[in-house]
């Protein structure tokens, strides 16, 4: 069997916090990502969703080697990436690229678009200097920008256009996998659709795989085949797009989906929203057992003290659904369904 393009197993990332003691030991640890596993096939899209601080960006940054994994493995076409040195990473860097949230911050203001797009080619020794310019023009064309603007600087473009440049730069090396961390959240509402359509078109054209992070669930639903819902560093549910949005199983997934405001006044008036109590707990001091238990509306249905005592593992159930809850099939799932 050929391995998946990206295979993540038990990925864990801990950060030292609170400074160091006299002996140089960290005073505490923050577990930003804990035991995250998933596969991503060529040409497919996987979404990571969850609330601020749940570990989406840390997962992405650990996968591309910006953070060193504390434990677990990341394989690209079966080859292990964790533990690689900077140089060891180089051959893979071409194949895994990242698009960032903030198109303003991620482009060098002193470089022209031509040199922004040629730089990755130069670093990897691809294409002769003369051909790099031609390649830059083709990339601009691919992302819907006017090739005549190739000698302009980033500030001469609008926010949406700058994000297109960010996408073009990521595409320069013809990657297999694009990691997009909130690629549209900094953009005006009327511009977001342009970029989402572009990402979809490019995926079809170049067979790209996307690891896609967004807090807007409707955006994720639009772009992803499969979704991982994260809470406090862990994946609490993994499901196909249709399963998740039609019938979320984990109590947190259900609350999350039901909290999304719908741009439809009639549906808004009818819907029953699960309003969670309390705040997202701090990852420096996570609750015992199931991290969701202090807010979980279904906790009473689990006998005894199980939710507080033991962390449920993420596993497949009889019907094939994958979630991490002590309840087999949390009931009320049908009631919480989003009207299709």
């Amino acid at each position, binding site marked *: 069997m050929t391995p998946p393009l990206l295979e993540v197993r038990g990925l864990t990332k801990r950060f030292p916090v609170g400074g160091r003691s006299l002996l140089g030991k960290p005073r505490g640890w923050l577990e930003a990502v804990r035991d995250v596993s998933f596969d991503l096939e060529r040409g497919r899209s996987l979404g990571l969703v969850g*609330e601020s601080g749940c570990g989406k960006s840390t997962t992405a940054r650990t996968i591309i080697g910006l953070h060193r994994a504390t434990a677990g493995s990341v394989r690209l076409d079966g080859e292990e990436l964790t533990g690689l040195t900077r140089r060891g990473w180089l051959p893979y860097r071409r194949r895994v690229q990242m698009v960032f949230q903030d198109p303003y911050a991620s482009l060098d203001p002193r470089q022209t678009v031509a040199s922004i797009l040629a730089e990755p080619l130069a670093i990897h020794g691809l294409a002769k200097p003369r051909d790099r310019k031609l390649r830059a023009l083709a990339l601009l064309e691919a992302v819907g920008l006017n090739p005549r603007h190739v000698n302009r600087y980033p500030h001469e473009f609008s926010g949406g256009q700058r994000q297109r440049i960010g996408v073009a730069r990521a595409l320069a090396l013809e990657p297999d996998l694009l990691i997009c961390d909130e690629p549209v959240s900094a953009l005006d509402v009327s*511009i977001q659709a342009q970029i989402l359509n572009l990402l979809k078109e490019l995926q079809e054209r170049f067979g790209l795989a996307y690891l896609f992070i967004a807090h807007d669930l409707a*955006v994720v639903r639009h772009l992803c085949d499969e979704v991982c819902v994260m809470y406090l560093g862990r994946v609490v549910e993994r499901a196909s797009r249709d399963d998740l949005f039609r019938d979320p199983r984990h109590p947190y997934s259900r609350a999350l989906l039901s909290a999304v405001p719908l741009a439809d006044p009639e549906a808004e008036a009818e819907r029953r929203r699960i309003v969670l109590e309390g705040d997202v707990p701090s990852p420096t001091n996570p609750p015992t057992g199931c991290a969701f238990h202090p807010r979980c509306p279904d906790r009473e249905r689990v006998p005894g003290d199980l939710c507080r005592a033991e962390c449920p593992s993420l596993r497949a159930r009889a019907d094939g659904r994958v979630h991490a809850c002590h309840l087999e099939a949390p009931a009320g799932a049908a009631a919480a369904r989003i009207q299709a």
Partner: protein
Amino acid sequence: MSPVLDVRDLSVRFDTRDGTVRAVDGVSFALEEGETLGLVGESGSGKSVTNLALLGLVPSPPGVVERGEVLFDGRDLLALPPRELRKLRGDRVSMIFQDPMTSLNPLLTVGRQLTEVLEVHRGMSRRDARKKAAAGLADVGIPAPEARLDAYPHELSGGMRQRVMIAMALLCDPKVLIADEPTTALDVTIQAQILELLQDLQAKHGTAIVMITHDLGVVAGMADRVNVMYAGRVVETAPTRDLFRAPAHPYTRALLASIPRLSSSPDEDLAAIPGAPPDLADLPPGCAFGPRCERVRDACRTAVPALAALRASLRSNADRRAACIDADALHEAGTAAHAAPDGHREDRR
């Protein structure tokens, strides 16, 4: 019934190095008691400046309130001396912002900030004020309110700070609450808590709310009426359901069609709006949406279309207006499609 807040022809410009920015240009609206008015538009469309102008808070220079009246309790707020206006702010007319830290003082305990409001506006004793402040925190769902009075803002989570700010804004039982993106910085589950809280408090006190947001979902759930802003002007106003069911302005229509939804087909392309929002220092002649509008023609470029009542709304009682020379035709076509049994439902599919 006369409105609690009546804004007429409000216009604000900023004199900047890049030229004159027409941030708010001839904005009018009225707000009834207990009503929620949604103000939607993209970033830079003038929502926040409108809000600041209502409260006499436009930074000057570079800002200049060129024209307009803001009638509250029979008085024009824009003509009030600064001292009178300050007395009103935080008392009869209150506001909450996207970032609670802009209205909370990081150096004072929550309790001190709340009691100060009551001492200044209500002349309460420190002790009574403390009691009322604790009750205010309890009202917005803060557990152990007595203990929280001694906390500093940075010791609270984002959702909690937002609650404290709301409690502070509501302490004096205002008639009008202006909420500028009150939940934009919050997570959706916390947003749901805050929106529910605002609705409960409104039902209890009959507060009128101006809800400023770029999130069409938030307006759909909260607002009775919606003003859509584009490039500093209101381009469409309608009761919320009517607006979503049969939008009349091409910008509103395009905006509603462009957002991905939990109920739309994920396999279809989104109907993206071409181009980008205009530069307010360099607006195109005539209709500002012209360069992005698929229906644009010569007539659109000669004059800025006025926000005029829809023909259909003259027959019914619904106050619907739009600023487009094609609004009637679009609205009527939209309504017909909507009424047809297997018609294409623009607002849902």
